[in-house]
């Protein structure tokens, strides 16, 4: 099949990852998947405010996901939309399994994800960047978290939907994965697909995550080992 940008069905977009892009943050990373660019910054562990939201036996992983006004075709008004609030929640839960939150009772680990350029797969790029930022910050984790979306267009299972593919696909399935523990920490889908097909699409997404994981390790090594 011919994809809009000439890729093979199971090929992801050209991806680059850079760790340590925001000097003020304790950890940070930029992930580019095609024209989708996500920047994540982590501050913490630090004091949690307001006090009444502190959790007595673990840290609060506060995740804020926002799209920069000029990132999309139409300008996005600053502030939170329902879409971004939902993405904050699923992103947070995708990352929570990986972090040893119990090491820092009552503290806050603030994860800020900004999409500065959007062309589909923004939550996946955001999670990839956030996971790198958390590791960069020296926050204890069980595993890294990688994420990508997959779908089915026509008869083919397709990896890393981009541009118009988000509309053409029978299903849009973003997935986040802890590669060493082999655990899925984010799973969403919308579409119309048989259970067998869902399984195939998930397997493709997992393969994509494994490739991204290798890149994440390289990016971390490049930042810290000169």
């Amino acid at each position: 099949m011919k994809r809009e940008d000439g890729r093979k069905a199971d090929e992801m977009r050209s991806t680059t990852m850079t760790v340590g892009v925001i000097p003020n943050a304790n950890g940070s990373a930029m992930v580019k998947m095609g024209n989708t660019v996500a920047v994540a910054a982590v501050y913490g562990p630090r004091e949690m405010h307001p006090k009444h939201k502190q959790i007595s036996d673990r840290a609060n992983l506060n995740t804020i996901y926002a799209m920069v006004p000029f990132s999309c075709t139409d300008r996005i008004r600053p502030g939170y939309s329902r879409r971004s609030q939902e993405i904050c929640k699923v992103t947070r839960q995708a990352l929570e399994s990986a972090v040893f939150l119990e090491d820092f009772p009552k503290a806050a680990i603030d994860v800020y994800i900004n999409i500065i350029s959007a062309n589909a797969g923004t939550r996946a790029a955001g999670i990839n960047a956030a996971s790198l930022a958390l590791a960069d910050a020296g926050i204890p984790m069980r595993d890294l978290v990688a994420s990508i979306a997959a779908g089915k267009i026509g008869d083919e299972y397709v990896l890393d939907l981009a541009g118009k593919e988000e509309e053409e696909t029978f299903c849009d399935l973003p997935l986040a994965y802890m590669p060493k523990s082999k655990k899925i920490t984010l799973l969403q889908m919308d579409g119309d697909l048989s259970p067998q097909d869902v399984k195939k699409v998930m397997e493709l997404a997992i393969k994509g995550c494994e490739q991204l994981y290798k890149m994440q390790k390289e990016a971390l090594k490049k930042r810290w080992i000169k």
Partner: protein
Amino acid sequence: MAELIKKEREFVVPGDEIVKSMDYLPGRNCFRAGESICARKIGLVSLSGRVISIIPLSGKYVPKVGDMVIATVEDIPGTRGWVMDINSPYKAFLPLSGVRDFIDTNRTSLDKVYKIGDVVYAKIHSMSGFDMIDISMQDPRARKLRGGRIIRINQAKVPRIIGKQGSMISMIKDRTGSRISIGQNGYLWMDGGDEKMVMKAIDLIDTEAYKNGLTDKVSKLLGEPKKPAPAKEVKPAEKPKEEKPAEKPKEEKPAEKPKEENA
């Protein structure tokens, strides 16, 4: 004993499996998952006997009793002491009992002793629970910092900057003539001497921290010893020490001595 999957001094990321064997024990920054010992943070593998640890490369300072830290007065709630910022996930507290002189709180308000923004060199005295950290000024090295300047350093690299039994930091002090106090919590205070050279030495240690021959590299950078700076603040008009005119070029030593540096 089983062979390590990740070797000594190899770079690992969280989740990386270092060894799959019950013969080893998980030390600092490691955890056991089934039969495997895995890394919890990015860092370098370190093996000591049967204990596998990870030397961390980043992360916020986690206080330990006995550490000397550079702390800033953040708040003075009431008359029991001072709330201190130690650049850690939790705040520390300097109680009245931690100060050398007796303070009659009926006659002296605490901010006359230390006010908000004052910076002290103090010791972590006790920790009861993760967030009840008491510091104390009773240690002979403890004092209020006056003059000089403060730079931030990666707290994970502090052991390398101090060196074995303080050898590295002593060398830097002697050769630059600068008075230096290091906080385990990632701050360095310096006053006088060749401050630029101190920063160059810190940068070098930061980049080369875990490579061989670090001491020699730093020694080469620092060059000949300078006269120590006077304790009082020097007036700008005096201009005591400019950049050393004949600065040794920073070329890499070709034949490195295989000296192992253990923090």
